[in-house]
């Protein structure tokens, strides 16, 4: 039940974005979760890459589509479409590098500004295998996560520790939100809505496969 799959036999499709400073291990988290691979020397990511993995919750096949992008600040200018339709996000920092943790605040507001209000968010302290170099205490991040209502996990893409757990928790949270919403909305269209970029009055989160974007104005001004 893993690996890249191109099939369309799924019930729900969740778009999840990875964000965080350059070099914190976003690409390796992606490859660990979707292909169970890790590269000690991976290439710097430019532009956007994504991969998928299908999981099952409550007998429903959920296809998680994970997006990864360049961490360098200036790339925000070309990735405004990155957040379109995302129902989940993982903000990643490196536990051995305090500046990458301090920037999480910035990433969080970047996310809040661009993504759907209902987006489920997790905070990930990656490189937990570098315990001897730890610069960010677990408790501190935990508090930050609680204050901001984020899920929190420390992971190691290198030795796989907690990687699946972090993604699964997030996917579960999204699923809960979506099914609650589905119930609220009763039966309006099982096949989901097309999220045309300019659909102005859609519900904040559609019953899937994806949420409607509700930040039309900010989107229109993007550059």
């Amino acid at each position, binding site marked *: 039940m893993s690996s890249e799959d191109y099939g369309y036999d799924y019930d729900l499709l969740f778009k999840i974005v990875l964000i965080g400073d350059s070099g914190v291990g976003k690409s390796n988290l992606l490859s660990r979760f979707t292909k169970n691979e890790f590269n000690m020397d991976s290439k710097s990511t430019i532009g956007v890459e994504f991969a998928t993995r299908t999981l099952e919750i409550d007998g429903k096949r959920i296809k998680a589509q994970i997006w990864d992008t360049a961490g*360098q600040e200036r*790339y925000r200018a*070309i990735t405004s*479409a990155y957040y379109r339709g995302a129902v989940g996000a993982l903000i990643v920092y490196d536990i051995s590098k305090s500046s990458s943790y301090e920037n999480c605040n910035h990433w969080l507001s970047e996310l809040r*500004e661009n993504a759907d209000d209902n987006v489920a968010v997790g905070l990930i302290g990656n490189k937990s295998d570098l315990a001897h170099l730890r610069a960010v205490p677990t408790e501190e991040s935990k508090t930050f996560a609680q204050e901001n209502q984020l899920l929190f996990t420390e992971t190691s893409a290198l030795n796989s520790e907690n990687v699946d757990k972090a993604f699964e928790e997030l996917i579960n949270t999204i699923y809960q939100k979506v099914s609650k919403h589905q119930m609220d909305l009763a039966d309006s269209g099982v096949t989901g809505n097309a*999220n*045309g970029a300019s659909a102005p009055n859609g519900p904040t989160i559609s019953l899937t496969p994806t949420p409607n974007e509700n930040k039309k104005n*900010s989107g229109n001004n993007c550059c």
Partner: protein
Amino acid sequence: MIRSSTISTEAVLVPNERVVDTMSSCNEDGANYSVLDLYDDDEEDDNVSLLEQKELLTTRELEKAKAFTSLVMADPENFDRYGFSKKSYFIQQEEYDKWLVEYSRYSERRKKKWENLLSKNKINLHNDNPLTYPARNEELKKFVRKGIPAEWRGNAWWHFAGGQEKLDINVGMYDRLKEDCRAGAVSAKDMEAIERDLYRTFPDNIHFHKESFQRGEPAMIQSLRRVLMAFSIYDGSIGYCQSMNFLVGLLLLFMEEEKTFWMLVIITGKYLPGVYESDLEGANVDQGVLVLCIKEYLPEIWSHIESSYVNGNGSTGQIPRPNPEEQYLSRLPTLTLCTASWFMSCFVGVVPIETTLRIWDCLFYEESHFLFKVALGILKLSESEFLESKSQKLFRQYSSYTFGGGNDADSSFKKLKNKIKTQEEADMEILQVIQNFPKRLLNPNEIFEKILMKKKISLNSINQETIDRGREYVAMERNRQRASSRPQGKRN
């Protein structure tokens, strides 16, 4: 490193006589190019037929082809002549070897033709690495499009891009910049970003990879650092932008450091203006131009993009609203998340290395409009795959709805077609194809012969002027739209 003096392909690759006989009209006085090279050679068959390929894929051929790659390499089994790992997630060793046999023969044949072209123009081969080339003309352009011999590339790129002219008016500058770097002129931010990317540039290339037995840093890593740092202080409005590491890395495999530096100046200033600036606006402008080109030349993909700009709420049956005038220029389509990096890296890492090199040959000869052609060519080639995945999906949905399919299901099929596809799903399909498809373009001629050199295909009418005008228009339009939407507040 590819150094011409150490390379003689003739020594390792004996041309196949049969091919030479049929492909070239050789004669004694050196006018030894194919007639097809002189005239419209769109249909020239530089690939051997399938049957022949099979026949030729003998052990002997393979050994020969491997020797072709072993000039600089300790491990020709696994690495190519440039030091890149042959295998990738998308390409198997077997597939690679098969292609290599074929492509080595192609390269050898092309090189002979180049030699003849140069000698016809009385240009000295200069120990198998000519320093100059004939004046620009259609014939030369065709030669470049069919690939510059690998051993000649460094000098040829330098020549076509006008590197020497740039260097001549800046003598000594690179050395001064290096000194300034040593004196601490590089900003902490750029330095950190550069250091982080040094080993993340070509981890799959032995020249950029530090083996556990190595003591110091590989020389290539040191050069990469020096060029990027020098550039960051040379052009403060750019500093260091990720993706420049790929450009410099590849250039360093073909030319020395100082030349690499000036080539980077030419790429970032002349070919891709504004693309690497701190707001990447040039990159957005180029993507806008690409979108306009798609609109004109690739209707299938355009219709997909367009549908994301009208109120495509299919399941509730709302009537699509007209599209605000060219909104897609300020609010670029999702597809550009992938294609932006194609331009920024000039296709390094986007397509397999030999295809990248062929693109670079043309980039330096024909300038940036060629990148647009390649992007459109790749989209064009992947279009069928994209459509296929779309129809497969429709078929599956259809089968499940009709319990195995019946004859009378045609109308329900049509209904479904409108119903099942959300915009996000469609975006995903197209992105998935576009992300992976180019990585399998092992054989450059796949795209060069089928798309880029075909006169029939209309995208050949794109030239540098079209692109320059497009850039001007898109930049203006984006400014205008930004200005008019500013009062509403938020930007993203």
